[in-house]
């Protein structure tokens, strides 16, 4: 028998009537990178939370170093040497980067007699920022960072904590390829120092690249554990969903000749300058570039969420000043924002209310909400977007990330937009839901909707878009038509090495 660091034995976890995990047994070897994969709702997060001491299993035992261990609190989990990099970043927004890195750090290095050794923390943080090539200062507050930058900071913490077992839940969801490489380097470094890593990701190519072995879960059940060298990506997809999915199906451009949106020399100081492009009816236009290149900011300006901008925006040739979100909506612009949790979902509301946040305006009967109409519409929406919910009056938080994202998409597409802006539309959602979101975007482009997609996943842009424009540090650096698409070329423009 190999030397196992953790062994799960018949783990089950029930929430009320639903079983999140059913009789799961497998083991993880010491010093390996063990990948967990499965669609959303397969039970990966539940398993992680059990290791983190957040949940206790309903049945079953966990053996750590061969000894039966009850992980009944977060403290206990830390004692056992677990360190968890969560998908949603728990950092203190009002503290500096350096302080966040060393938050909870117990070693005496950071103390100088009774006081914190600020200089030490700052220097160490600077080293880490250089490693990731981030143009940030250690004293900068975390709230000023983008989501990608925040997730890097969280991963970086792990280097200092030197855990025995590190669990990473979708650590690279918001990162660019280069940043991902640095994360992989860190994983290798931790591995050589004897850390065991449990790695959760939807990106199968990553799993193949970084993993030693893989455990697949489906619907809360253990499917198999395999050595990475024994499987291909296609095998994994089949194992995860139990069916075959064509992720990058053949592409048919729906672009028409009519120019829908024309942006001329759009500028917002400190964010982007002189951005000019056109969007045709039915076209899917991608914006590629690194985090901080100003892509999100351009979308926010087009949607009137930040004000004011310089330059011209024309819709159907007519000059329009987008003062605020209301003007944008009036001009039939829609935005699926970058952060589902912060910018889109209203957690205290039901699935139905979230889906109808915008369209409710058309469902009034005099001063009152027409309940019959809303009920009828939500049924249609549920079917059209195949939202997996038994009852749309349940809270939105009962849905998986992928289904929440479908609700957000439904909120806007049901409002019949002409221009659809999508910012990282598939971030942190599973393969199945991803291809459903792609289908939704392709479907609306058939109706003549012009779509702009900002994404850090190049394969996503390449499979989805008719045309890609590339930004680098707030400027447009390149434009590629479908027949020119290649990851190398896009990366070249994004890093500005081939201009």
């Amino acid at each position: 028998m190999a030397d196992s660091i953790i062994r799960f034995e018949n783990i089950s976890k029930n929430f009320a009537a639903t079983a999140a995990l059913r009789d799961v047994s497998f083991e993880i070897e010491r010093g390996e990178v063990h990948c967990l994969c499965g669609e959303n709702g397969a039970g990966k997060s539940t398993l992680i939370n059990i290791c983190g001491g957040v949940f206790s299993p309903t049945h079953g035992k966990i053996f750590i170093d061969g000894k039966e261990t009850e992980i009944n609190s977060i403290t206990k989990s830390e004692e056992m040497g677990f360190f968890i990099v969560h998908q949603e970043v728990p950092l203190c927004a009002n503290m500096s980067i350096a302080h966040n890195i060393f938050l909870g750090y117990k070693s005496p290095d950071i103390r100088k007699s009774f006081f914190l050794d600020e200089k030490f923390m700052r220097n160490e943080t600077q080293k880490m920022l250089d490693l990731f090539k981030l143009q940030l200062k250690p004293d900068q507050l975390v709230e000023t960072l983008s989501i990608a930058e925040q997730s890097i900071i969280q991963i970086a913490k792990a280097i200092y904590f030197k855990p025995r077992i590190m669990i990473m839940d979708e650590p690279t969801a918001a990162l660019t390829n280069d940043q991902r490489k640095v994360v992989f380097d860190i994983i290798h470094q931790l591995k050589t120092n004897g850390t065991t890593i449990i790695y959760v990701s939807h990106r199968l190519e990553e799993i193949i690249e970084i993993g030693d072995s893989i455990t697949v879960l489906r619907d809360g059940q253990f499917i198999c554990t395999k050595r990475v060298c024994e499987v291909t990506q296609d095998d994994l997809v089949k194992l995860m969903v139990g069916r075959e999915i064509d992720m990058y199906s053949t592409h048919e451009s729906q672009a028409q000749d009519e120019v829908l949106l024309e942006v001329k020399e759009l500028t917002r100081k400190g964010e982007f300058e002189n951005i000019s492009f056109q969007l045709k009816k039915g076209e899917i236009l991608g914006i590629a570039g690194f985090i901080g290149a100003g892509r999100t900011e351009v979308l926010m300006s087009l949607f009137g969420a930040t004000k004011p901008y310089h330059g011209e925006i024309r819709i159907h040739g007519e000059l329009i000043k987008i003062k605020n979100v209301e003007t944008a909506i009036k001009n039939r612009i829609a935005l699926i924002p970058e952060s589902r949790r912060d910018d889109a979902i209203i957690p205290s509301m039901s699935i139905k209310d979230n889906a109808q946040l915008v369209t409710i305006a058309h469902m009034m009967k005099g001063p009152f909400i027409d309940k019959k109409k809303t009920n009828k519409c939500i049924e249609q929406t549920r079917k059209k977007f195949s939202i997996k919910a038994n009852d749309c009056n349940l809270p939105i938080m009962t849905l998986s990330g992928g289904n929440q994202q479908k609700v957000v998409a439904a909120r806007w597409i049901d409002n019949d937009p002409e221009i659809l802006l999508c910012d990282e539309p598939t971030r942190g959602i599973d393969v199945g839901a991803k291809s459903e979101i792609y289908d939704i975007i392709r479907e609306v482009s058939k109706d003549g909707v012009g779509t702009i997609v900002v994404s850090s996943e190049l394969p996503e842009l390449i499979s989805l878009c008719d045309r890609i424009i590339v930004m680098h540090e707030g400027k447009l650096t390149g434009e590629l038509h479908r027949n020119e698409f290649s990851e190398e070329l896009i990366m070249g423009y994004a890093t500005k090495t081939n201009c």
Partner: protein
Amino acid sequence: MSSRAKQLSNLKIFKFREFGILMVLVVFVVLLSVATDTFLTSTNIINVVRQTVEIGIMAIGMTFVIICAEIDLSIGSIYGCGAMIAAYMIKGGSDPSLAFLVAILFGLGVGFLNGFLSTKARMPAFIVTLGTMQLFRSFTYGISGGYAISSFPEGATDSWVFRMGDYIGPIPVQVIIMVILFIIAHVVLKKTRFGFNVIASGGNQRAAQLGGINTNRIKTASFMICGALSAFAGMISIAFLKSVPTGAGEGREMDVIASVILGGASMAGGRGTILGTLIGALIMSVVKNGMILISIPAYYQKGFIGVILILAVLMDTLLNKRDKRGE
């Protein structure tokens, strides 16, 4: 048999949010009915409900404000100052209807000020309304010079404004007014776009804004509703007491906030119901009334309310935690 039990637990009443807090009310009522001969008498019950009126009406406005994820500490001062202004006008010979209107406008105005400063000027509502609370409290003392105003002119007390303090048979008019206001507020929160937008603005302000909702306007409107209803409650107290003490409404904000929180609203915003608030307000007055009936010394009464509030919120947090884990 077990299917029968299942049927029972599927009944709508067990699922609705206010069920827990309603049970708390029922427990208090039953306990007091058993412990005293005086609680469960029609006079006392009517009295308890009448004592709920002012807090209840103010709590309606506070529910909107709290669901918006804001807070209003100035309501006690709006209540007192509005009533004081109206009392002065009536005493000076003005038409009570005009005085009533001025008081309501005053409430709307302070509400607008609170809303403007805490949305457009981006100040925390806690600070803004702490300021307006002090400001208008001092006005109340200033106007009255520290004396209560009473003995209004003969003709004035015949006005409809003072009829609000009367009884129709055994039922106080103000109770009827309160019930009507609760029904209207319930409909506004549940069935109108404004109510929908209030819940959205408090649930996730950023998401609401990106959904095209003008959250500043929604929040300001909620503060204005809260101000107007507080002034209205002040007018009801004039009608009933035919006088205004200088300290009218002082500390009232705490009872009102406690009622709303008891009723299940979340200080984090996005959650709360009008029905819950009504039950919360009733619990407050049942408990106060009960404490007098079983002669708990006055000094300890507030402490008891504090304990109930903490226990109720604790219960709610535990329940919510269970809900969340059941995702």
